[in-house]
């Protein structure tokens, strides 16, 4: 490849990635050269500034046509733009949390904290914009490896070490399964380019080959369910969420999960929608796999919501709650209606806001108390009424009560499930039933916050960064709940992500 061809590419479409990469590299160098005793806080500000600049550049790219460079290994399409916006916003908020994170024993590796978030974010962004299995996998691994370290960053904390180890082992297994699945698809098509693979797969007539493809589908889905924290790879979530530093937990539950759904959508829609399958009546491979996805979605919702009932540790509670939400999102995927990507985008946006807001409050309350027991929330309303009301908004939204973004998100997913023919009544019924189950533990938090007396009456100290996160998330949760058109008007410009394969 000559210099000239290299320069012909429209590198401009990668600006957000370059910014994040540049800031991450710069941060790692500065952190290395900085004297040990110097505060690392300015690095955090630098990282946030970098992410914000990346968001601005991404907004600048919104009007750019669908572009593909480097032999399709990097694509800037509507899907990429929309989901990158979520990833970047989530990362900016998580970095704000990370700046104010003060565990009991102190944070020794503050600098690493910031740039590892950025590299993980970079991995997620690459996944969002990739049209090739190789880059897709590289992005996935970049995200995963950064997250493994993030989980173990509280080095003096036993649970943090445990969580990192569990995360690595589980992640390794799931990656192996994913790769194995990928190898099957590669074997069938002889290419790693998603578009070319799709063309090859659509010509697959031999039933033996189709069987192998179905096997590949299941392996890919099972492997990737690790990132979604959905059944069958959900068991890491509670332990890792509990042990990891709270900002890292927030990152895993929001940004990493979003990235997981991104790769699932990108991979399965591109590869399997066109592939044929011969069941009772010939149809697309993706549609014929609908029941399996639906089954896993149902199992995820049931397990997440019922096990959450018994949790006393708030971080574990939110781990199971995040498993449940992955289940709700999978309902949107399993329904495979024409509102699929729209509804999942909206739900992920709503989830990002409400969950990060809840994690912000969770972080300051548990940090201050040094314990993650649910009773630490007792009497929060007396100690800090405003904070309690904010937590109320986030939890109501997680529970899907009208007036909040969570409700509109659920309605949209239901809409998808009912609008298809045949409609997914069973799946929707499971979703609504488990939502009711979730009321028990979400309102259990309210019992603590509003009904129980406080152990002491000192107000909780809320640092500036956390305040910003809470305010942004609360405003967003309410705004998307009352004026969801804000989001839908934004989505309209993408025309339902029709340029997926173009």
């Amino acid at each position: 490849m000559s210099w000239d061809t290299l320069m012909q590419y429209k590198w401009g479409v990668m600006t957000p990635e370059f910014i994040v990469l540049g800031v991450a590299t710069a941060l790692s160098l500065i952190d290395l050269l900085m004297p040990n005793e110097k505060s690392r806080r300015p690095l955090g500000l630098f990282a946030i500034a970098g992410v914000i600049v990346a968001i601005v550049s991404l907004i600048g790219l919104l009007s750019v046509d669908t572009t593909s460079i480097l032999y399709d290994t990097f694509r800037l399409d509507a899907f990429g733009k929309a989901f990158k916006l979520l990833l970047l916003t989530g990362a900016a908020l998580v970095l704000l949390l990370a700046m104010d994170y003060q565990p009991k024993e102190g944070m020794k590796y503050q600098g690493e904290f910031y740039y590892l978030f950025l590299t993980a974010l970079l991995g997620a962004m690459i996944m969002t914009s990739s049209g090739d299995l190789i880059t897709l996998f590289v992005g996935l691994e970049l995200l995963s490896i950064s997250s493994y370290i993030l989980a173990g960053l509280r080095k003096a904390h036993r649970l943090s070490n445990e969580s990192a180890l569990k995360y690595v082992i589980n992640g390794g297994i799931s990656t192996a399964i994913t790769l194995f699945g990928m190898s099957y698809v590669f074997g069938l098509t002889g290419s790693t380019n998603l578009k070319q693979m799709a063309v090859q797969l659509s010509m697959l007539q031999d039933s033996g080959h189709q069987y192998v493809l179905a096997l590949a589908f299941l392996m890919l889905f099972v492997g990737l369910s690790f990132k979604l924290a959905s059944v069958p790879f959900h068991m890491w979530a509670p332990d890792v969420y509990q042990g990891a530093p709270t900002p890292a937990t927030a990152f895993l539950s929001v940004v990493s999960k979003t990235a997981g759904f991104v790769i699932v959508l990108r991979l399965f829609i591109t590869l399997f929608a066109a592939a044929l399958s011969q069941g009772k009546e010939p149809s697309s491979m993706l549609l014929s796999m609908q029941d399996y996805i639906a089954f896993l979605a149902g199992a995820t919702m049931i397990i997440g919501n019922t096990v959450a009932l018994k949790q006393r540790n708030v971080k574990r509670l939110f781990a199971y709650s995040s498993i449940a939400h992955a289940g709700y999102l999978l309902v949107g995927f399993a329904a495979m209606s024409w509102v699929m990507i729209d509804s999942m985008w909206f739900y992920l946006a709503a989830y990002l806001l409400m969950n990060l807001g809840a994690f912000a409050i969770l972080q300051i309350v548990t940090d201050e108390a040094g314990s993650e027991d649910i009773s630490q929330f007792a009497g929060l309303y007396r100690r800090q009424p405003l904070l309690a009301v904010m937590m109320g908004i986030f939890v109501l939204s997680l529970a899907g009560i009208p007036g909040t973004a969570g409700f509109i998100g659920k309605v949209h997913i239901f809409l998808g499930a009912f609008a298809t023919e045949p409609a997914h009544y069973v799946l929707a019924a499971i979703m609504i039933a488990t939502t009711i189950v979730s009321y028990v533990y979400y309102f259990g938090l309210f019992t603590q916050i509003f009904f129980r007396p406080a152990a002491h009456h000192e107000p909780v100290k809320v640092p500036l960064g956390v305040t910003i996160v809470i305010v942004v998330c609360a405003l967003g949760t309410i705004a998307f709940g009352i004026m969801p058109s804000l989001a839908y008007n934004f989505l309209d410009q993408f025309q339902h992500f029709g340029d997926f394969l173009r």
Partner: protein
Amino acid sequence: MNDTYFLSLLVFSPLLGIILLAFVPKTQEQTIKLLGFLATLPSLILALFAFGQYLRGYDLSRLAEKHAWIHFGKFSFLSESTFTVDYELNVDGFALVMIVLTALLATLAAVASIHIKKEWKGYFMLFLLLEIGMLGVFAAGNLVLFFIFFEVTLVPMFFLIGKWGYFEKEKAAYSYLLYNGIGSAILLLVILILFARTGTSNIAVLQELLRDPQGAVQMIAPISNDLRYGLFIALLVAFGVKLPIVPLHSWMLRVHVQAPPSIVMLHSGVLLKIGAFGLIRFGMGLFPEQFQRFATLIAILGVVNLLYGAFLAFVQEDFKMVLAYSSISHMGIVLIGLGALNEAGIQGAIFQVVSHGLISALLFLLVSIMYERVHTTMLDHLGGLAKAMPLVSGFLLAGAMASLGLPGMSGFISEFTAFLGLFKAKPAIAAVGTLGIIMTAVYLLRAVLNMTYGTAKRGVIEAADIRTVELVPVLILLGCIIFIGVYPHILAQPLEATIQTMMNGLGG
């Protein structure tokens, strides 16, 4: 009509109170209580004004509001309005009557809230939010909006019960939350299935669509006959939880006993009626054919409610429990009226909705006044109330008389009309039902006489009689009950058009 904001103003005016309350220091008890009371007034004034205008022949459809709100994606292959939910409010005679009832009871319950002992600020903010939800439910022009307001009542009630209630308040709050959560979940499923399959959630359009699928407006996906039955049964269960229909009633007993009486006034007076309202508006309005098929069952369920409530009310030791079972029993009459499927029956059902709203509010207001002084509602511990509190005792007796259907009071009109309807349609079931009326007299008189006569127990003797601030709401409620009793036309006239539409839908 887009240039009127009358209904929005009516529904959301308590919001002003919430915002003002946010700026009042939480220790200013008197200011908060006054503000909480004043904040309920604009809705009441607007509602009464609209009611007055309507009685003079004003066309309510001119109040309708419609603003673009949510669109779930724009699709080239669908028409512009598909999968949009507009912010639309409108009322007809029935809804307006319910709104007047809600606004009136909210104002009176705000007065009764003088007995609240702690955290007045949070209480009144939630109280006003609850009022918004209740008013919105009756004014909502589409199903999604209806559901949103419906759920808006859920959360404040959870807190109002769980924080300001009596001994087992948290259990009651949870029981309320879960039962109603399940009820509204089923309701949401129905609403969204209709929305997804027709592309609209507007009640009037849906009515049109379901009656004539081949009509001018096209559906997105078919709604088969089986699905219709499924949806109707789901609606029956969803609103059956709210009403409540036996055996879905256990939550409301707890709420009646554990919640603060001022909240029970609203709960028993309005929230239970949302069940009846929904059943009439959606069950009967959207699925008339299915409703007809189930009419006998509904009438039987009504008689079961009536008798079950009445018999269990007879053996209760706690006056609040007597009233709770009495509510179940009286809601049975609503079902009886609806099951009759004729004009008299439906009219009786709606009359009962309004009448019981007023009566139960009156009785719980009196409970609140009484509890404030003697700190018990157990029948054993009471007695001789007539000596210490002659006025309260008198009002209690009057309330009981209204409840058991003494002619000249609203209870009589509604029970009479409902039974008249059922006797016309299904005399056998009605004959069994009349037993309930006798039982009502028995259990109410037993309870009230137990409390008012006999030797006065300790703690009862020195209790003071009613204060002026408590007297006014009692008199207003009693006045309304008697006024409807002697001049039922005041209700019959606004309901006429609604009932006529219902009957047309039923094809009779």
